[in-house]
């Protein structure tokens, strides 16, 4: 019924809008598709260019070369370890600190919140941070990935706003049964907070997975660099000896570019697989964070 009422102008608008949206989707997806097909193409053949829609000389050699490179594999290990440990510790620690702050009766609450809010708008900057890490002995140690990112005040606000919405009756009945606040937090609050835990875990996980800069400035030991740092070094120092060795020692047809592309695919793939399932959570999570305080 409504359809019949549409004016010509509206029909034109809808068409134009649909075409515009398809264009956006194409522009978004094509670069990713391009990396993918080129990473599955023979490296030396890809050098000739002209591969736009489909691999010309299909091969998995680039991936074999990546998996055969011990340095790269080690850096994948570092990335996986820091993402897992870093995410779990950050989410639990931040949630733990956030829970008391969601209670109005907490003494010193205002002071704590003010202390945190200041950190959102003012910081010591790169160098004082670097010097602190140096004094704490965090340089060139795996802990530099975990401890400095253990806590995040922005995420804390999201947690606080979420915890405030949980009906207090649940906690009250538990405290009558003699459970203390820590037990209530662990047994009642955390299980009820899955959506917000998933959101923060996604944000933190993506940070850890994609962070290359910590590896560049705080780490010298190549055994401790995460894969993004490894990739950064290939990109910044293209044609590095590390890479050329990787490219040539396995099979002749791979090039440093084709190795680069397949490494990009491998590093990006896990996140791309995960985020659509968490979409409804992070959209909500971002809103809770943005609405108040």
């Amino acid at each position, binding site marked *: 019924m409504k359809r019949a009422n549409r004016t010509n102008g509206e029909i034109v608008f809808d068409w134009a809008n649909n075409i515009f949206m398809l264009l*956006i989707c194409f522009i*978004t997806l094509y670069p990713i598709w391009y990396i993918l097909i080129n990473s599955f193409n023979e490296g030396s053949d890809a050098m000739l260019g002209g591969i736009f829609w489909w691999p010309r000389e299909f091969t998995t050699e680039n991936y074999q070369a990546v998996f055969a490179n011990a340095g790269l594999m080690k850096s994948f290990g570092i990335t996986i370890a820091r993402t897992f440990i870093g995410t779990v510790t950050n989410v639990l620690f931040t949630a733990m600190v956030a829970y008391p*702050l969601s209670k109005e009766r*907490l003494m010193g609450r205002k002071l704590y919140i003010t202390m945190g809010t200041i950190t959102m708008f003012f910081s010591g900057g790169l160098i004082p941070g670097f010097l602190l890490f140096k004094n704490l002995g965090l340089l060139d140690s795996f802990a530099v990935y975990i401890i400095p990112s253990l806590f995040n005040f922005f995420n804390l606000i999201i947690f606080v706003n979420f915890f405030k919405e949980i009906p207090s009756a649940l906690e009250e009945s538990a405290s009558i049964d003699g459970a203390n606040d820590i037990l209530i*937090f662990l047994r009642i609050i955390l299980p009820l907070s899955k959506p917000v835990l998933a959101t923060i875990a996604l944000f933190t996980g993506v940070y850890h997975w*994609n962070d290359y*800069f910590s590896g560049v400035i705080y780490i010298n030991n190549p055994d401790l660099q995460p894969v993004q740092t490894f990739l950064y070094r290939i990109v910044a120092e293209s044609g590095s000896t590390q890479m050329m060795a990787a490219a040539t020692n396995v099979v002749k047809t791979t090039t440093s570019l084709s190795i680069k592309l397949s490494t990009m695919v491998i590093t990006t793939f896990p996140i791309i697989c995960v985020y659509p399932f968490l979409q409804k959570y992070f959209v909500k999570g971002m809103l809770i964070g943005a609405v108040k305080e």
Partner: protein
Amino acid sequence: MEKTSKKKLFEKLWSQKYLQLMVIPGIIWMFIFNYIPMTGIVIAFKDYKVTRTMWEADWAGLEHFVEFFTDPKFFNIMTNTLGISLLKLVIGFPLPIIFAILLNEIKNARYKRSIQTISYLPHFISWVVLGGLLITWLSETGMINEVLVNFGILDEPISFLADPKYFWGLTLISDTWKELGWSAIIYLAAISGIDQQMYEAASIDGATKVQKIWHITIPAIKGTIAVMFILAVAGMLNSNFDQIFLLGNVLNADASQVIDTYVYEMGLRSGRYSYATAIGLFKSVIALILLLIANFTTKKLQGRSLF
């Protein structure tokens, strides 16, 4: 009297000992990782060398600030920092709003959701991957030149990242590509909160689509736009470090050296800790002032503010 109230206070504190036990580690963490570095700012006013502690170092007064302001690169660095941010603010800021409004006009819910999911995707790709890809694509033998030359748009390939004049535009385009969908989330949510009856009433009155967008949608999300705008203005001196760090090089340095990259270069590459800290402090202070101005202005104009 005094004693009993003190006792009561203590009793209250004791009754919430577990809550305090949970919150204190976070406060200690903030103290160490946020507040101790803030005291480290003192080296901006000193001549800090690694051989002595920052408290023993000689005072330098405002020497490092004066050096920065008279640095022959100062004008260039400020132009780049503000220029890139302004470009992103003027052109980049409205785009997610437009995208959100137009996406909201897509009626098929499933189609709309798919577009949304696709539009978030680039946000999850790291700058290292995107930067590496762009360096490859924009090179003389890269894919962009291949297409442009094949279509006859260019006579011969251009090495885009080797020429400063393309740099600002490239930062705008790559930033938009990466964050368009992600930045739109907040506006989409604001739009979804609008009462549908308002649109129906407007339809009965014979309003066109554009009129509905102009008179219902945009006024309804004005507050959200204001808050995001304050944050964008406050962040104007914060460049997208990762992006500029990856795409910048010696050849395009005239257009790509910004405060953040200069701090990194002076501080960690050249080991001039005091100088780099002074530049960083200058940036933080200006950013704080910008935040307060933007907050004040929007409060006056819109009645919406952060604090």
